[in-house]
Every structure is written in structure tokens, then in C-alpha cells.
């Protein structure tokens, strides 16, 4: 197995307070790594540092062995890294299909071909497949803003897969999604993981979801890695129980 993502000693502080304080880990190809921890433990900040939304105060990020620290999010996306955000981030005025085409178009051709080529960048078929895959068929032409919260959440996730990414970082994909859809979502993620050999890092508060989906789980507390291991190992770890699970 090769490491798709290697994170070494990432630090990020805001005005003297370290939100992420020396985190290192790696993710192997095909893994689904769960990232859990109490609110404010630095999960999302870590994501933002990995993905170039924030520049880390120290540390290094490698994707497929290549140093990507300080790269812009768009460049990283070009290398096959995509993400979702904690809050919904679909484009409400565009239709579902347009949202998906948008999510994939920068992976097709170059600037010139995107200007002079077909309006859909040749992605209508791929978008329709993705729509079918996430069971959004009847909504393909609706503006995304008109969808229910759960449907938008699915679309949001679907958008992250349009570019055919190697590595996807999902920030609370299950938040606010109802039970039926949750099962659906888990299903889809697992399917993509297996069929397309895509690697995932998932931040999630829904323990059931994490523990049943992920191959490995990393627990963060106060900006540091508290524990790392298989779901059952983590669940049994006394420090974790103390800090997080122990209610």
C-alpha cells in the first residue's frame, strides 16, 4: 500500500493560540479514515491547512509523495484532492446538473477549450451518472436551492466526486441528514471507495456512522492526536473514552 496523504507535524495558531498543535498522520490508498473529536479540537482547521485554505504555521503535507504545503486549493484539486465543507456549499441558483458539471469542468481540457468547447465541457453524461448514483434523477433540472437539506447534502458530496478524485476530505457529511438518507449516503460512499479506489478522510460527529464506515479512526483533542486505530480499538481506548466518548 502507498500513502496517498502524509501529514507531518502540522501546526496552526491564531493570535498565539494553537488550534492545531503538531499533528502527524498518513492515509493509505483505499482507506476511509474517520476523524473525530470534540468541537473546537482543531479538526476543521486541520482540514483547511491540508487543503490550502489556511497556510499552516509549520509542518508539511504530501499528496502521493509530493509536497503540497502552501498550494492553493484549486491547484490541490487539480492533483485529485477534493472536499466538502461543514456547512452546505452548493450553488443554489444553478440546477443540480449544472452544479455537478461545474464541479467537474476544471478537470476537462484547458482554459481555451473550456471557452470554445461545448457548454457542458462534455460532462452531461458523467453528471447524469452521478445524479443516478446519488438517486437525484427527478431533480436534475431543479435549481439546487430548491432541494431539501438532505438532498443538498447529497449533491454537495456528489460534487466532490465529479473530478474523479484520488482523495476526498468530507467535513461532517452526515450532519443534518435524516436516517433513510444517511444509510443511502454511507452506501454511496462505500461504493465509490470500492469501485473507484478513492481514499477518504471523514470528519463526523455521528459515531455510529463513523464506526461503521471507516477503516481507521483518528481522535483529536486540543489540537493534538489523541488516538489512532481501528474503530474497535479506538472505541476501547481509555483516553478516548475519558476525553470524548465518556459521557
Amino acid at each position, binding site marked *: 500500500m502507498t500513502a496517498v496523504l502524509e501529514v507531518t507535524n502540522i501546526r496552526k495558531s491564531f493570535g498565539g493560540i494553537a488550534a492545531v498543535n503538531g499533528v502527524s498522520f498518513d492515509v493509505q490508498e483505499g482507506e476511509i479514515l474517520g476523524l473525530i473529536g470534540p468541537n473546537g479540537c482543531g479538526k476543521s482547521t486541520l482540514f483547511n491547512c491540508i*487543503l490550502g*485554505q489556511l497556510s499552516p504555521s509549520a509542518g508539511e503535507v504530501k499528496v502521493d509523495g509530493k509536497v503540497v504545503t502552501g498550494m*492553493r*486549493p*484549486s*491547484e490541490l*484539486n*487539480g492533483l485529485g484532492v*477534493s*472536499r466538502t*465543507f461543514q456547512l452546505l*456549499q452548493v*450553488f*443554489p*441558483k*444553478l440546477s443540480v446538473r*449544472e452544479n455537478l*458539471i*461545474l*464541479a467537474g*469542468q*476544471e*478537470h*476537462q481540457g484547458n*482554459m481555451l477549450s*473550456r*471557452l*470554445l*468547447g461545448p*457548454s457542458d*465541457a462534455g460532462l452531461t453524461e458523467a453528471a447524469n451518472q452521478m445524479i443516478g448514483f446519488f438517486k437525484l434523477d427527478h431533480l436534475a433540472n*431543479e*435549481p439546487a436551492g*430548491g432541494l431539501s437539506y438532505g438532498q443538498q447534502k447529497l449533491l454537495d458530496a456528489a*460534487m466532490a466526486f*465529479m*473530478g474523479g478524485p484520488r482523495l476526498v476530505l468530507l467535513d461532517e457529511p452526515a450532519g443534518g441528514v435524516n436516517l433513510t438518507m444517511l444509510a443511502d449516503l454511507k452506501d454511496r460512499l462505500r461504493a465509490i471507495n470500492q469501485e473507484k479506489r478513492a481514499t477518504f478522510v471523514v470528519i463526523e460527529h455521528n459515531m455510529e456512522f463513523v464506526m461503521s464506515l471507516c477503516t481507521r479512526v483518528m481522535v483529536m483533542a486540543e489540537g493534538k492526536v489523541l488516538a489512532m486505530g481501528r474503530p474497535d480499538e479506538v472505541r476501547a481506548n481509555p483516553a478516548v473514552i475519558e476525553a470524548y466518548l465518556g459521557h
Partner: protein
Amino acid sequence: MTAAKTLKIGLGIVVIAALIIVPMNFNRYGLFILSQWAVMTIAAMGLNLTLGYAGQVSLAQGAFVGIGAYTAAIMTSNGLPLIGALGVAIVLCFAIGWILGYPALRVQHHYLAFVTLAFSTLAFLVFRNEDWLTKGIYGISNIPRPEIFGYPTRRPLPFYYVCLGSLALVSLAVWWLIRSPWGRAFIALRENPVRALSLGIDTRRYTLMAFAIGSALGGVAGTLYAPLTQYVDPVPFHLSLSLDLLMMVIVGGSGFFFGPFLGAMIAVLLPEWLRFTQGYYLMLYAIAVIGLLIYSPTGILGILDRFISERRTKAASAQRAVAKAKLEVTP
């Protein structure tokens, strides 16, 4: 749906035909106003691209019209063809627009308004002070009108067709652009730059492109403005033209393809409509704009759009209810 589409296409054809045929009987004033409308629409379309689609405020569009107009005036009065001037103006405005876009990468939208405002005033000062090039405050007069395929357009009607034809070409190009992946990227840039970036959209490049292309269209409008009025001086390209163009875009409906057409029509014809109010028309215009913005910040087409989408939502939810009912019935 298809009936509506046929209707739309039919109406479009009628309008285009009317724009070609009806003005044949117009007097010189009517033709001049229509030509002016076409030219201003082109400039406003450029700004609509920058502001309406890509969400970048520019108070410098008037300056680009000025750059285009001076390019045309200087080149054609030295015997060079207008088409050459058009090329130079596009390249020049594109390049300057690109550079002017850089602040947009660093600062928030209201600062951007001030940078472009400053640029606009600086451009005016250059037009006025660099006599050797622009003939300063006296301006350049007797600008010739072009020959198109050997056919002179000195008379108002042929020149109107030049303006109309240019508008048609620009409209097609802009329509193509906003339907292309670029247009989608511009909208993404406006709606949610952070998300756009995470989807691989190089927001820097698209921001600069939006500025540069919008500015270049300002230049295109300018190259038509010069032979239209046949006289160019610095005064019309002061900040007020930029503000006027901005209002055209906003009043018509920013981010709507037909917004600039409507906005320019209102701005160009408004003095006519409000003629009976004598000196009060600008005051009434101001009040009307404020009222409109309070009611609908996305302009006149925004009202229409809201109306249509409300109806559509109603229809859709009705449909959904029907579908749901069916689902519940079938075991």
C-alpha cells in the same frame, strides 16, 4: 415548455426584424438614439460580465469606453482603419483591465470600488492633460465613419446598422461565454469563491479574466462611440459615465443576460420619457432607482425572475404533492 420556447424564439425574431426594418423610416435623431443605445448596451454588457456574473465591482467601465474612443479617434483620424483600432482597443483594454483586476485578488469588494474609481479619475486626467496624444480638453473632431466592405457608413442609417451589427456580434459572443464553462465559473466566483476554489476553479485567473473581458467590451463600445459622435473629448468619460453604466446594469438587472439591454434603454431614453417634468427628470430618475433597488436589488429583470420562479416553485410543489399522493396510493 416547448410551446414557450417556440414563442420565445418567434418573439426574438420579431424583435430583431423590427430593429432592422422599423428604423428605416426614422429621422436622424431616432437613429442616433438607437445607435447610442446599441453602443451603451455593449459597454453595459461588459460591466454586467464583471459585476453581474463574476461579482466584481468596477467603477472604471466609463474609463475603458474612453480608452476605446480615444484609440479609435486617434487611429482613424490618422487614416488607419476602424477595424484596426478595434483590435488595438480590445488588446489595450484587456491588458489594462487584467492589471486593474489584481487589486480584486487582494481586497474586498468595496475597496475594489475605490481602486477602480481612482483609476477612472486618473484616466480622465491623462485624457485631459496629455495634449500631444489626445489633444487635451479641445478633443478630437471630425472623426471619420468607417467603410464596411467598401460601403461607406457616413449617413445615420448605415452607421446604425454598424452599431446594431456590432451589438449582435457582441451579444452572441457574450451569450456563448456565459453558457460556456467560463460563465459557470464566473457565477461560482460570485456566489461562493471558497467553494469554487475547492472545486479546482482557479478563482484568480477567472477574476482577472472577468475584469479583462468586461473592460475589453468597454473598449469595443468606445471604438463605436468615437465615429458615432464624431468628436471625442475627455468630459464624457469622467466618473459619471462609469456610474451611469453601473446604474444601467443594476437597474436592468445585474447577472441577467438582457439586463444591460433594458438598463441602457432606460438610461438613454429616460430624458425623453420624463421630458414633461422639465428640469426635474434626473431627480425623478434618482428616486426611481432608489425605489427600485429597495423593492428589488436585482433590478427590473429581478422582479420578473422572482415572479417566474415563484410560479415555478408553486407548480413544482403541486407536482410533487401529486407524485407523493401517487406513491402513497401504490402499496
